[in-house]
């Protein structure tokens, strides 16, 4: 009882967010639930990227390729080997994690710059690599993934709350949410405990970390493996949620979208990936709905905005955030909170009367 009373306010916030996401599909349409499921999937992948970039300080621009690996593993297992989809999610995650771990070994020898280069090349090449074994991956045509029907228990519970039957989109939303909750909880634990602290130490000073007895190579490859594990899970869920994957599902722009989400939300933070994912997922969708509805804009502009809008806005946002708020939305909220808190209590720096600047994480 006393543990509940003394819980810090942010625990209550987490509880509120979880309840919100649990209840959300009961009040929105099945189509919107599917969109939100994809936003959550993006959040999982971004959390993976966040562990790699934010906590361990290695930049990957090719996480779309890891998502593709997860997605194709699941889709092939379901399509060719008739496995149950739910079983393939952990298989895809573990396989992708292993591949990521192996990728992390040569990555150890690379400077951050070279690693960015190699992973970017991987992201550009991966669609054409996927196309090649056409018998396995379906080539350009891609693979259809049958969406599962919700089990009876879930269907009855959902009908009890909303009075309408549960669609498979809503069921997939809950599968996704479950995975996201588990993975975010794991990431939170990772960040607070020994591995997370070791990774941050490596990020902030590799030599000092090694001198303190941290296994630098081990933790760096571990970060790569974990990060790929998250991306693989996200890819597998993405295949389930969209019901169809092809090489064009995983273009370079997907990797850029992940990076945008990670940077906008805030690197090296736990809520950051969720906020960043919601932003990066809904920005192009909403702008594509909003711009054509503006009748005062000339026809020519509305048609080009549909194609070029996301790229332009992503680019501008990436640059502006890195220039002015390198810790993203979470960093802004945190400084805002600290500032307000100090104003209220009148506790600024006693010497200068100024509030110390935010530390830069990347």
């Amino acid at each position, binding site marked *: 009882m006393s543990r509940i009373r003394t819980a810090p306010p942010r625990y209550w916030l987490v509880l509120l967010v979880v309840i919100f996401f649990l209840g959300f599909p009961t009040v929105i349409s099945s189509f919107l639930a599917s969109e939100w499921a994809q936003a959550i999937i993006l959040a999982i992948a971004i959390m993976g990227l966040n562990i790699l970039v934010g906590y361990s300080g290695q930049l990957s621009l090719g996480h779309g390729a890891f998502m593709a690996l997860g997605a194709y593993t699941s889709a092939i297992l379901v399509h060719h080997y008739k496995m149950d989809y739910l079983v393939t999610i952990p298989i895809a995650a573990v396989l992708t994690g292993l591949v990521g771990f192996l990728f992390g070994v*040569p990555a150890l*020898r690379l*400077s951050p*710059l*070279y690693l960015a280069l190699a992973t970017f090349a991987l992201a550009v090449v991966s669609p054409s690599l996927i196309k090649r074994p056409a018998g396995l991956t379906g080539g350009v045509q891609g693979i259809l993934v049958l969406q599962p029907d919700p089990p009876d228990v879930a269907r009855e519970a959902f009908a009890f709350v909303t009075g309408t039957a549960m669609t498979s989109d809503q069921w997939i939303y809950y599968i996704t949410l479950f995975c996201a909750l588990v993975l975010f909880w794991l990431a939170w634990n990772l960040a607070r405990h020994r591995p997370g602290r070791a990774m941050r130490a490596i990020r902030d000073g590799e030599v000092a970390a090694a001198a303190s007895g941290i296994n630098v190579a081990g933790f760096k490859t571990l970060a790569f493996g974990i990060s790929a594990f998250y991306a693989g899970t996200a890819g597998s869920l993405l295949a389930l949620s969209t019901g169809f994957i092809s090489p064009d599902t995983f273009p370079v722009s997907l990797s850029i979208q992940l990076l945008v989400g990670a940077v906008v939300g805030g690197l090296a933070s736990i809520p950051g990936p969720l906020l960043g994912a919601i932003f990066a997922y809904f920005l192009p969708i909403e702008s594509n709905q909003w711009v054509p509805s503006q009748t005062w804009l000339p026809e020519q502009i509305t048609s080009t905005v549909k194609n070029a809008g996301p790229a332009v806005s*992503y*680019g501008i946002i990436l*640059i502006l955030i*890195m*220039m002015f708020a390198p810790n993203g939305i979470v960093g802004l909220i945190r400084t805002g909170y600290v500032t307000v808190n100090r104003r209220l209590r009148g506790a600024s720096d006693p010497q200068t009367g100024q509030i110390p600047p935010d530390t830069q994480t990347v």
Partner: protein
Amino acid sequence: MQEFLQLVVSGIATGGIFASLALALVLIYNAMGLVNFAQGEMAMLATFVAYSLINRGMSFWIAFPVTLVLAFGGGVVIQRLVIRPVERAPVLALVIITLGLATLVNGLAGFIWGYVPRSFASPFSPDSVDLAGVFVSYRDLGVIAVSGLVLLAVYLLLQRTTVGLTLRAAAHHPEASRLLGVQVSWMLALGWGLASAVGAVSGMMAAPILLLEPNMMQAIIIYAFAAAVLGGIESPLGAVVGGLIVGVTVNLAGAYLPGVGGDLQLAVGLAIIIAVLILKPNGLFGRAAIRRV
């Protein structure tokens, strides 16, 4: 044998395109220890500018230098507006910013010119000439000549002029140069302008071969990365040699290796990058990196 030589010659021509872009990457790497992910997109934008100029009735050989000047100005402006405020930021932040720049420029080009591929008329005749039994197209010869001239010009500028000397000094020893009265920040802007112009050459040479569209340089930038890494990312000579090697290798691999054709040629670029980084991280001409602890 004849076919082999023909492939080698056309490989050298594409290699010249890669070499120009790789040289642009090396110029910026030398100036600030940063790989500019936006280099290819900047070249693509310059090529679109050239396309518009030619479409307005300008001849290619007037549009070419005009575009180079505009690209130079554009590079300087980008450095002043976007890069200078974050000069001291960690390298990861800078990489993310250049990536944002790449996305932005790509989107802008799509916004202005759309995503429909356009043909970009080559200034060279499509005929071939018989050189000792090897048929070489005038296009390939033209690309080789233009790339060669540009690379020579950059070499002369860097090695034989005062501006080049100051540029190199500012890149290698910013503190000492500043003490000697070199305006380091403006030298960096000059470096960006120069890189942008050199990259624009590769864009204008590539456009007649590929079709002009906003994603045109996406493949070429990978080959240019491969070339720059192979040459040891800080050596201009290495970038040129690397570019030629990558061009010829990719062409030969596409023709002779089973299964490597069409868009899988790009995988050869990735393979070169990874192989060099693992086997010989300093490339052919790079100095061994010394880390002070």
